[in-house]
């Protein structure tokens, strides 16, 4: 069996005394798009943040391409090729789009923005605009574009389409397809038609646990996911 891009085993996370993730196990194969669905508070964001190094699990393991991720600072995890795109669409608003991308390049030593501009041509004309003046969709493009610098092997993307116009969601669907040609994607998403359109596998979460694993493809329908929302 080919080496998995991301493997999580027995991951437990607590905020102080309050346990929020319970024995999470999951695998993501190379070039696979895995979606996590579940209600608010199910632990989806906590899961991504724990893998990305922002939260310290109380026990368990997470590896990317066989390399241990647990116990490392977020910048180390990012340098290992695991990029986290948070859900708040918070770009550095006082910096221009160009400066935002420069920071991504500085961190990864990847100064080639061709792929970013290919996926998001609109960013080319917004390069000198302060990121604080971008729309929600443009911010999301910038955040995803910036995260692609350095050719990450795993991308953890949290609620990318929340509050975005349908045309931008359609474009992001195309981009996720393209990105999966070079990386494995873990996407937390509530937009079920999108999930069913892109996911190779879906993990449903409830109360900090993975309660179902649904295979992608024709069998995956919004109706199959709805019970978990």
């Amino acid at each position, binding site marked *: 069996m080919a080496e998995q891009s991301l493997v999580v085993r027995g991951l437990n996370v607590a905020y102080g005394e309050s346990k929020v993730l319970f024995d999470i196990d999951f695998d993501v194969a190379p070039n696979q798009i895995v979606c996590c669905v579940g209600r608010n508070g199910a632990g989806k964001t906590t899961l991504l943040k724990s893998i990305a190094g922002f939260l310290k699990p109380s026990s368990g393991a997470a590896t990317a391409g066989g390399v241990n991720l647990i116990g490392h600072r977020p910048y180390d995890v*990012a340098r290992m090729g695991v990029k986290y795109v948070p859900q708040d669409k918070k770009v550095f608003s006082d910096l221009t789009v160009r400066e935002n991308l420069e*920071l991504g390049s500085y961190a990864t030593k990847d100064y080639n923005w061709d792929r970013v501009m290919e996926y998001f041509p609109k960013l080319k004309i917004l390069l000198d605009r302060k990121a604080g003046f971008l729309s929600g969709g443009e911010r999301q493009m910038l955040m995803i574009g*910036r995260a692609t610098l350095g050719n990450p092997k795993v991308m953890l993307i949290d609620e990318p389409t929340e509050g975005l116009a349908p045309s931008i969601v359609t474009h992001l669907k195309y981009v996720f397809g393209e990105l999966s040609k070079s990386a494995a994607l873990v996407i937390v998403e509530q937009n079920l038609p999108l999930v069913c359109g892109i996911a190779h596998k879906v993990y449903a979460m409830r109360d900090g646990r993975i309660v179902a694993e649904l295979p992608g493809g024709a069998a995956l329908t919004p109706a199959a996911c709805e019970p978990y929302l």
Partner: protein
Amino acid sequence: MDPQLLISGVIFGLSMASVYFLMSIGLSLCFGLMRIISLDQLLYYSVGAYLAYTVSVVSGNVWLGVLAGVVVSGMTALVVERFIFRRIYERELTFSMITSFGILIGGVGVIKAIWGVVPRPVRMPTPDLVTIFGTEVPVYRLMVVGIAALVYIGIWLFLNKTIIGKAIRAGIEDVEHVEGLGINVSRLFTITFVIAGALSGLAGGLHAPLIMVDPQMGLEVLAFVFMVVIIGGLGSIKGTLVSSLIVGQVVSIGSLIYAPLALMAPFAIMLLILLVKPTGLYGSTMVKK
């Protein structure tokens, strides 16, 4: 008011503003990026002043003393950041405030042990006077203003034109996201802290010839530096500059009108500004993460 007195007061106010600016910029940057209140910056101010005194006595060159103060203050800040602050960045804001106050008080004790408690005079680098609108003004005060202006330009260029500066600006907005990009923020913290310490040392070195250097000098300016940072808005360089100018002029002109005003008026201005704009003139609503 006598116009000559007013011109003299304005120049005095500008030189005070310059010292306040150089001191406050470190506090402001440290809060903006690391969300800490670094009262130990006032210690580096004293260290800068004492180094200016000692080196100028030994070498006869005050500028060499100022330079030595900048270097030693920066190095002291580096040691403090590495061995103390790095361990407490994750703690509550009040923890950093109390810790840094402890460092300040401890440092004042060390200064007393080395230099004693007797105030020391530092020679003016130049005794020259220049006439501005018929008023004779010490050239050195103008030089202090000029150096502070150059520092502002330098800091602006650093923050806007270098990648480290851009990372610091981004970190002031959201340090977690900067780390998520793959940037080692603890290195940014160290760079910022050392710059802050060196600038506080520069403030002390430049201020030394205008006052008597004494161990309590850091504590004496504590209230003014706090006012500058709060009026300008925590984390804002532009705000720090503007509020330094306001506080410097209010202290200077206030003392010309009625001496006690020099101490009272800046507090009144701060209260007024906070009533209208609780974040300060250029501050954003930042919270401890």
